[in-house]
């Protein structure tokens, strides 16, 4: 009807329970973030969430899991023993 649909690049819902992963690397990087949160931050999700918000804000049009990857890379750089940002 009215406004031009800007949802063309969105994966519109098709079925209940649809998974959000389009490629194996996406589920891998999802699990890697879970591993870092659990094993390096004692379960505190907030540091990763802050990085994710920053990564999305830095490039709003970037595909989601690529921002997720960038956020995890940034978080890993803050770990002790890493070269740093």
């Amino acid at each position: 009807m009215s406004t031009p649909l800007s949802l063309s690049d969105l994966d519109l819902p098709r079925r209940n329970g649809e998974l959000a992963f389009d490629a194996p690397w996406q589920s891998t990087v999802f699990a890697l973030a879970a591993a870092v949160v659990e094993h390096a931050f004692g379960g505190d999700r907030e540091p990763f969430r802050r990085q994710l918000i920053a990564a999305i804000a830095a490039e709003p049009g970037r595909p989601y899991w690529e921002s997720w990857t960038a956020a995890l890379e940034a978080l890993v750089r803050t770990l002790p023993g890493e070269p740093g940002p």
Partner: protein
Amino acid sequence: MSAGGHHPAPVSPVEQRVAALEALLTERGLVPAGFIEEITSRYAAEIGPMNGAKVVARAWVDPRYKQRLLADGTAAIAELGFGGPEGDHLVVVENTPGVHNVIVCTLCSCYPWPVLGLPPAWYKDPPYRARMVREPRALLAEMGCRLPDDAEIRVWDSSAEVRYLVLPERPPDTDGKTEAELAGLVTRDSMIGVARL
């Protein structure tokens, strides 16, 4: 199904970055063997919208449960055994004939994972996040969810502190159905608020 798909797709730069992350984190002992498979299969199989559907069906058949659910979502959902990461503070908002609720996360992708599983791709994309706040009625219509003109739309912005779950209206003509049958009617999208049942 793409034609001529006999050759593996070339590895993309982001895949290389993820492989590098995996190697680095494994070397540092942060990724136990089998962890990745365990996490992804747990989210695919155990955690997902079927949990939320059970919560909704229980609320439809048990008015006292519904009362508890609306008063303290986290506790009432924990009664059914669901909780954990990203489900610290769950708030359930009820649709009525005059009020339609929909959830969004304007900053990133906060989502009630223990009851809905992983967020769908569109939930995380900028057009949904921006437009659901700016023009919810138009966006809902584009997504196939048409509401009466006089229905009030309430948009709930999820955050690290609060995750929302929509309690959809029970569909008409379902009086004879069991709780399990009712749960089968509840879709993920109806619990995000982008569809009605």
